[in-house]
Each structure stands twice: as C-alpha cells, then as structure tokens.
C-alpha cells in the first residue's frame, strides 16, 4: 500500500534520513521504533508531505507522493496525528472533529462519523462542547486521533501517541489503535515505547541515526537479542 524507497532527507546540511526503505501492506499495523533523534518523525513528515526528500520516492497505492503538497496527500487517504498532538486548543472538541473532516463535503455522513468517534471515545462525547485545550493529555491524544479519523483515511500515521501519558492511559490508547486497525484502517506507528509498539504491530522496523538497522515481523524483533538489549530493557 505504502512504499518508501531509498529515501534521503536533509535538514540543511544535516543528513537526517539515509537510504530508508520500508513497506506497509494494507490492513497491517507497522511500527517504526528507535531512540530520540533517530529520524522517526522525519520519516512520517516525509510521507505526509511536510518535508521533501532529496532523493528516493514515496509511493501510495501505486501513485508517487513525492512532491505532492501536504493537503493533496490528505485527499489521497493518508492522515497524520502529529507529534505532541497539536489539537486546536481554542476550539471545542466538536469543532476540532469537524475540522478533521475539512476535505469532505458530505455533511450527513460527517455527522454520522462524529457519532462513531464519540462511540469509540466516550470521553470526547462527554466533553464535546469543551475547549480542546482544557482536556487532559490522554483526552487530547484521543481527540487528535479522532480528528485524524474524520478524513476517513486508508492509512493513519501516528507519531508517538504514548508521549507524556501515564502508563495506564498508554495501554488504553494502544487498545484503541488496535480497534481502529481492526476496523480496516492501516496504521504506521512511530514509537519510542518499543515494548507497547511491538506488542500490537505486525511488522516492525528499527531506526538508528537515520538508517534502518533491523526489519522483520514484530514477534521476530521482540525476540531479537539486540532489540531486547537496546529497547526493551534486557
């Protein structure tokens, strides 16, 4: 479904992503794990069009994404939950969700989708009229995910959904990610919390200083000696 082929990304003179290739097949959860500064978010930003690679290509359902502006990539069915959530703090929960459906114009179905999101995240339904900035961290993460789902993406890009959340909430968020995937949405998940990520993913890649050093099924990686040492605490 998504094919990233020998992509190189630079920030000015800094070579951030080096010859990265990865594949996401339809229906899967694929995770990209790695330490701080390894370039995980950079890869996501390249896929969603916020950054342009110097060489290499990104393909989605057979069509080239490289050079396509970010807003058109959303229309092709890729939606991103940015790192640090980036919800619209001064708008209400409902308005945030409505903005998630920005590219759609089917008012009736949008309303149905909002109800579906409320069903999946009951906490958001309770707080629909509240300003998003007053939600707790976990609720904001739920809102960011709900908002991303409002564009009915085929592929959902999640950037560090566990960031800054209590362990119990992290579990809840990951359970929801699995549910979303079961509903037919393919997911590319970037995480520092390798343990949680590997527990729900099908395929996994390990990224170290801009390079992919390991790839395989999530189970293989979770059992691999080097991953256990470096990311899973022995």
């Amino acid at each position: 479904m998504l094919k990233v082929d020998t992509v190189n990304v630079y920030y000015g003179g800094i070579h951030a992503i080096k010859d990265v290739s990865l594949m996401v097949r339809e229906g899967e959860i694929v995770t990209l794990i790695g330490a701080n500064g390894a370039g995980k978010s950079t890869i996501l930003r390249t896929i969603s069009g916020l950054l342009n690679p110097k060489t290499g290509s990104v393909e989605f359902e057979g069509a080239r994404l490289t050079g396509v502006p970010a807003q058109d990539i959303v229309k092709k069915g890729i939606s991103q939950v940015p790192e640090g959530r980036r919800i619209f703090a001064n708008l209400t929960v409902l308005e945030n969700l409505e903005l998630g459906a920005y590219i759609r114009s089917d008012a009736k179905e949008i309303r149905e989708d909002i109800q579906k999101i409320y069903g999946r995240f009951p906490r958001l339904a309770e707080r629909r009229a509240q300003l998003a900035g007053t939600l707790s961290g976990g609720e904001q993460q739920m809102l960011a995910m709900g908002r991303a789902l409002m564009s009915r993406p085929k592929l959902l890009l999640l950037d560090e959904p566990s960031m800054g959340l209590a362990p119990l909430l992290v579990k809840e968020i990951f359970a929801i990610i699995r549910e979303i995937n079961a509903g037919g949405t393919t997911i590319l998940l970037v995480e520092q919390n390798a343990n949680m990520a590997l527990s729900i993913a099908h395929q996994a890649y390990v990224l170290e200083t801009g390079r992919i050093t390991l790839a395989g099924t999530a189970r293989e990686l979770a059992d691999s000696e080097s991953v256990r040492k470096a990311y899973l605490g022995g």
Partner: protein
Amino acid sequence: MRIQTKTDLASLACGLTLYALLEGLILADIIPPYWQLNVIRVCIYIILATSLNLINGITGQFSIGHAGFMAIGAYMSAIMTVKLGLPFLVAILTGGLAAALLGFLIGLPTLRLSGDYLAIATLGLGEIIRITILNISYVGGASGFMGIPKYTNFTWAFLLMLFTLFFIKNFVNSTHGRACIAIRENEIAAEAMGVNTTKYKVLAFTIGAAFAGVAGALFSHNFYMAHPTSFTFMQSFDILTMVVLGGLGSMTGSIVGVIALTGISAYMADYPEIRMIIYALLLIVLMLFRPQGLFGSKEISLRIFSRLTGGERRGAAQGN
C-alpha cells in the same frame, strides 16, 4: 442552514432599521454636523477594523500595513472620479480591486513569514506605498490630491459597512473561514487536516486588503482631498488598536472597539493634549485586566438574545 439564513435576515433587518433611524435623525438635523461626520467615520473604520480582523484575528497573520491598502483605495478611486470622471460606485470598486490585487501580489511572498517578521514586512509595505504616492506628482505628491468631490455620505458609508460585515461574517462561518481559523490555531495541524495554508492566508489577506481599499475610497471622498499623511503607520496602528481593544478574532468586538475609540477621540477633540494620554491609559488598563480584548474571540449576536428569551433549545441542539 435555514437557521443561518434566518439570523442573517434578522440581522439585516436590524441593520436597515438602524440605518433608517440614523438617516432620519440626520435628515431632521437632530444629529449635529460634527457628529454626522463622526458617524460616517465610524462606518469607515468598522470596514477597516473588521477587514483587518479577518487577517489578524481570524487567520492569525499579524499585519500592520492596513493604511497602505487604504491609501491605494483612496487614490485609485480619486483618480477614477477626478481624472476620469467616472461614477462613485465604479471608483469604489476600482479602489477595492486595486488594493486586492496589490494585497494578493504582496501576500504571496510575505505570508511565508510569520509572527514578528510578517509584522515588520507589512509595516514596511505600508510605508513603501505611502512614500511611492508621495512622489507621484500625477496624484498631487506631497501636497495631496486636491479637489475630490464629496460623494461619501451616510448612506454610502453605512450600506458598504453593512455589506462588508455580511461578507466577512459569512466568509468566517464558511468552510473557508474554518480553514483560516485552523491556520490561526495551529498551522501544522491545519496542513495535516488538508488545509492549503498558503492559499487561505493569501485569500484572507487579499479580502482584507480589498475592503481596506473600499474604506479608503470612502475616506478620500469624505474630506475633499487625499493626503499621504493620512496613511502613515499611525493610521495602521489606530485600526490595529481598535481590533485589539475589541478582541482579536471577534467581529462584534471590532465594531465596539471602533465605536469606543472614535467616540473617545471625538469627545476629546477639544483637549488634544490629554487625548493621547487617555487613549494610552485605556489600552494599558485593558491589557492588564483583559489582555484578550473586550470580547476575546467571542461574538455577540441575536442568537444570544433569543437564548435569553427562552430559546435555550436551539443552543442545546447546536451541541449535536
């Protein structure tokens, strides 16, 4: 949708009633000439403030060069009426279009900047426009453009103001307005939602400039002349002050800001030396106690009144 049109019609009716009332008072000479001038001033500044609010308050792009676009409108329209002898309406439209075109051309490169940088760029832009005009002898140069007929009256000013308010209000409540608000709230997230951020920033800037041009046309045809000193950055700051006083992002706030500050200026006209002190003090006090402006980003509308009189259901239905 139907509720929207209904409140629109109700607001329009209120606007026209207010027009009839004020026009009646003016015709009956109950409002003295000095205050008639001020009423027209208020209308012109409401156009300026709400259009600047669209750029600064709704889209979150900090522009302080509004007087520049106003100058373009003022001079272009004067050229139309004085040099070419065209009717006032054509002059107003040309003034607005010229300002819009310039806004578009300038918006494309400068709106890549953000925050302080954009503010400085627009400030510079306003001055460039003024100094360019100062050096064109065709429009009078430093001595100003003389002999402009006084076409602006209460009717023109009020009706154009009403049009501006409806245009901007409907723009803000449309998908386009939502996109602009998303940009203000968080540009990266807006982009991730599929909002073409450059397009909407330039669009808001262009519309804002267009209405500033319209206000400029009314302005120059109100005082028999157009002079470059009317369009210095102080003018831009005056408009900005009105917007900030009322609350960035609130249209009704902008209107109240205009009325309050024009009122203070008018009352204080006899004591010019303490006028600026009061003006400044007012702003300092406001920033200390209500940094978000009088209204924040909230609006007062007829809906609130209907809610007060037992229309609670509509408010509740909106939550769904």
